[in-house]
């Protein structure tokens, strides 16, 4: 057990280091000089002194290897440098926008689990009936529907429905209020984005729940439980679901990537000032320090989530622990 945990944790280090090398190399692949792009936006002729000053500021005048280690070292204590666009420290920019994204991510996960597990189980138990077909279509629909379009359509629906009921159009608020200060307003804002992202997230987990459940229902111990005369409810809750949920846990972790991707577009649709929107703005403004920090941050979160899932999996399934 401890050997497995240690091995799994140690494996994170080379992955993260490799990712850091990749991000660092990518950002240096940018054709042309970052400083020229930055200073050239005004259409002025380049002043070599200004370019040199800019190089010095970003640290481009130092040897590559030094730059790399200062990038990694900075990352280790959350110092990502100064945003090229706003002039504020990158960590400040990110910290200001993190709560809103985290909240939507958490809510979306809750939405996903609440949809995926009951519907996936139902679909498996009613295999090849119309219920199954409806649930599977609903699931594939979630995979096929672009999150941003779903967002636009849900805003449209809310507008129309609120106009029809109250006479005045209602739009969810777009400014972030912490949940402890005004929970109603906070949830009004987060509800639609969470549902939009959550639906897609649910779709993948729903399919996984269904196929895991189908597999488990064929196991001998389920037949034994049936032969004992146990109630169907108990067989499903106590015997089948418990074992079927193992792969679902993994999928929920892996699909975290979808969640991040979903947040990037959904925040744009709902005009929310979260990390995803910051990322898009960073790319649009060619703010390379900010882009670099955000990519690295996402990768780290993703790798750590997967680590957590693997450890949870080992804890839930003794076969992995002792393998």
């Amino acid at each position, binding site marked *: 057990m401890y050997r497995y945990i240690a091995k799994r944790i140690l494996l994170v280090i080379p992955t993260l280091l490799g990712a850091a090398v990749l991000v660092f190399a990518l950002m240096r692949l940018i054709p042309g000089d970052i400083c020229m792009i930055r200073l050239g936006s005004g259409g002025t002729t380049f002043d070599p002194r200004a370019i040199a000053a800019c190089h010095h500021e970003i640290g481009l005048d130092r040897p590559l290897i030094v730059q790399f280690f200062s990038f990694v070292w900075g990352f280790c204590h959350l110092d990502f440098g100064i945003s090229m666009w706003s002039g504020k420290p990158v960590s400040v920019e990110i910290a200001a926008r993190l709560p809103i994204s985290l909240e939507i991510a958490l809510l979306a996960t809750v939405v996903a689990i609440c949809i995926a597990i009951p519907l996936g189980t139902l679909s498996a138990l009613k295999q090849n009936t119309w219920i199954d077909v409806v649930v599977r279509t609903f699931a594939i629909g979630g995979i*096929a529907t672009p999150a941003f379009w779903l967002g636009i*359509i849900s805003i449209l629906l809310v507008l129309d429905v609120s106009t029809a009921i109250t006479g005045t159009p209602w739009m969810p608020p777009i400014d972030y209020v912490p949940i402890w200060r005004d929970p109603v307003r906070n949830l009004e804002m987060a509800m639609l984005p969470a549902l939009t992202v959550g639906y897609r997230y649910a779709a993948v987990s729903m399919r996984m729940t269904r196929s895991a459940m189908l597999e488990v229902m064929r196991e001998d111990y389920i037949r034994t439980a049936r032969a004992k005369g146990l109630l169907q409810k108990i067989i499903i809750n106590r015997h089948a679901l418990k074992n079927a949920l193992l792969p679902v846990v993994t999928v929920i972790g892996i699909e975290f990537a979808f969640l991040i991707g979903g947040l990037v577009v959904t925040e744009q649709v709902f005009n929310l000032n979260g990390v995803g929107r910051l990322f898009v703005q*960073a790319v649009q403004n060619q703010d390379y320090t900010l882009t670099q920090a955000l990519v690295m941050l996402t990768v780290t979160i993703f790798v750590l989530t997967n680590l957590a899932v693997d450890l949870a999996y080992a804890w839930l399934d003794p076969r992995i622990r002792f393998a």
Partner: protein
Amino acid sequence: MSITVPTDTAVLAEVAPQGMHKFLRATLEFCRRQPFGAFGMALVMFMAVLGLTADWIAPYSPTANDFDAMTQAPSWAHWLGTDQFGRDMLSRIIFGARTALIVGLTCSFVGGFSGLVLGVASAYFGGRIDLAFQRVFDIMMAFPLIIMALAVVAIFGTGVHNVIVAITIPLIPRCARVVRSSALAIREVAYVDAARACGYGHARIILRHMVPNVMAPFLIMLTAFIGQAILAEASLSYLGLGVQEPVAAWGLMLQGGAEEYASTAPWIAIFPGLAIMLTVFGFSIFGDALRDALDPKLRDR
């Protein structure tokens, strides 16, 4: 996304039948057994025909502005209405199918085949080379698809070509990993040893003897990739970081106008999204049905 991999070589007869006749018969058999998948195939083929014949069937030019007919509701003259610049929505959707298919097919084929060769090579050589490949795939997989694509766009800029590069790169390790796991099983089969004993080169063994035998999981993945690539392109274009105006692309059609005019001209928001959804939906159910047809182990699921 894990795909159980058939090691049974008999199923390959269904994938690679000899001659057109067998192919047609296999297609008919597929339609009979998988009506849902056949529906997906029909959707996909419909979109493909739209994209291929866009020049002839589109009623208007996708870029022609008609400032007398801005944000008009669907009518006989404009079946799906017009956008905020007076462009015909139907024509833009038809030409958008071309963009989506070009991006979807190029990304999945280039990404898929690179992944296929790398994955099989990784399994074939084994040992340290395999380990090195694995680590590199691991690192690349640590980047969520859209994040990697955005990073590539940040470097090379926007436009159709850069979008294709941006989406292709993250697909390579995803394909390589799945292919590798099925190639590992094939490496142990006697005919690979026989080929080696005949003194064939590495390239010949990999390409002629191993690659054809991982075709089943590969084809399934390819259909899934096309859908994913179309979705990724639409997302990038929607964010203003993908295909640029005036090229007709579904994601782009939803950018800007769609939200602003959503309440007064909902057709601008509805139709391009429907097009994306139906196409990706078609590829998804077609891919699912293909998996069920090619993988006997999953047939009863």
